[in-house]
């Protein structure tokens, strides 16, 4: 079953498939992600797990770029390389003035650490065209993330580099950050048949699209190894939300995050609005369910061998 699936991470330990397509618009599961570590992992502290990832990526890939959105995840990735003295270039995507409130934090980090970032600029019209074309190509409900990352990946490829990001992070649901999956629509992957929310971890559609579009990039630092995923799942404080957990575990200041553009932009821009009216009717899921905390701890601490 897993041999024919797509994969990501070190040694292709995460298996996935995107099942929603023009030929198969109503699959039973719109996307699937399976954690398939061959070996057992031990619980290590978060910083150790991150150091192992940074060293592993540095050993296997040269000319590293780190995409910085201004969020905690990518700042932590940059900080991890920086602390180890591993050379990399921060790369910041700017779309008009749409995401200026987000990327302010990325510029601040670069300034504080005296590193000149690469800036990739696109106009709002170029960005809307790109995000909708990615959505059209893959029948995707998400556009902004994969669209943005395609500009960054294209730049890095043109400069012979390898892109690392804060994307590919697994998230816990339910969570305040993910309330939109219940309020704006009801994500079919994350709700039971009776409408109650599932409790467990997920991976988002844009992460799968990025891996599918740029399969050679080591983009998913935060899920690169079973060890770093295990460390997060083990250390996540289940009494506080994910934003607070990330700030605490990754030792970064908490911050608001729009992820590129506020929702009102999509309601006001004519072409974007039209795309939203269409894509909201494409499928019913924007993520794949991975399992409960206990299920993840079990598979990560035991491994699956060669099964």
């Amino acid at each position, binding site marked *: 079953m897993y041999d024919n699936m797509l994969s990501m991470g070190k040694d292709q330990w995460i298996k996935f498939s995107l099942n929603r397509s*023009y030929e198969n618009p*109503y699959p039973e599961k719109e996307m699937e992600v399976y954690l398939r570590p061959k070996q057992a992992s031990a619980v290590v502290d978060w910083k150790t797990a991150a150091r192992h990832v940074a060293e592993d990526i540095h050993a296997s890939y040269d000319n590293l770029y780190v995409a910085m959105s201004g969020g905690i995840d990518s700042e932590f990735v940059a900080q991890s390389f920086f602390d180890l003295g591993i050379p990399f270039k921060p790369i910041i995507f700017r779309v008009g003035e749409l995401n200026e409130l987000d990327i302010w934090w990325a510029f601040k980090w670069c300034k504080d650490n005296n590193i000149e970032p690469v800036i990739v600029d696109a106009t709002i019209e170029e960005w809307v065209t790109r995000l909708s074309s990615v959505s*059209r190509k893959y029948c995707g409900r998400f556009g902004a993330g994969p669209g943005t990352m395609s500009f960054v990946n294209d730049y890095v490829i043109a400069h012979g580099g390898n892109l690392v990001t804060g994307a590919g992070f697994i998230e816990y649901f339910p969570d305040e950050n993910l309330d939109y999956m219940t309020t704006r629509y009801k994500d079919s992957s994350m709700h039971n048949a009776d409408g109650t929310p599932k409790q467990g971890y997920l991976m988002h559609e844009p992460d799968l699209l990025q891996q599918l579009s740029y399969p050679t990039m080591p983009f998913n630092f935060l899920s690169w190894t079973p060890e770093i995923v295990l460390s997060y799942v083990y250390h996540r404080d289940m009494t506080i939300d994910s934003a607070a957990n990330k700030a605490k575990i990754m030792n970064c200041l908490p911050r608001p995050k729009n992820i590129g553009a506020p929702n009102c932009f999509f309601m006001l821009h004519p072409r974007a609005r039209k795309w*939203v009216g269409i894509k909201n*009717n*494409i499928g019913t899921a924007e993520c794949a369910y991975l399992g409960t905390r206990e299920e993840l701890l079990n598979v990560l601490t035991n491994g699956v061998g060669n099964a």
Partner: protein
Amino acid sequence: MRKDKLDFGITIYVERHGSTHLPTYTVLLDDTVIESKHIPDVKSNDNFMVYFSTELDQGPHTISVKYDNPLSKGLIRIDNIYAGTAAGGFNCDSLVKSESSSKTNMLRNTGIYQFNFTSPFFYWALSRYPI
């Protein structure tokens, strides 16, 4: 096979015809008549709206608007087809001409306008974006 549940709204622009002989428009989904109506003379140009909900099998479908006006001078023009669900929808105004089998959205005398699409509707629309 899963059905495609949809709400359609059709905007028909009607020009003043100034006649006591009332022309007729008929809206069909494939071979099923959705609405057939005499068009009274309007004081000025006007828009008629036709709404209907449907469940479609996957595959090709056609929304047709027939205009039957043998005597008076008026014309009608299909300006927009809105397609929606509870999750939202969009105006197919830019598709109205391009998806017409006759490539025109204006009808005079006795004519028929046909909007061709494939179900699931929104997958079909996405495949055509930007629209």
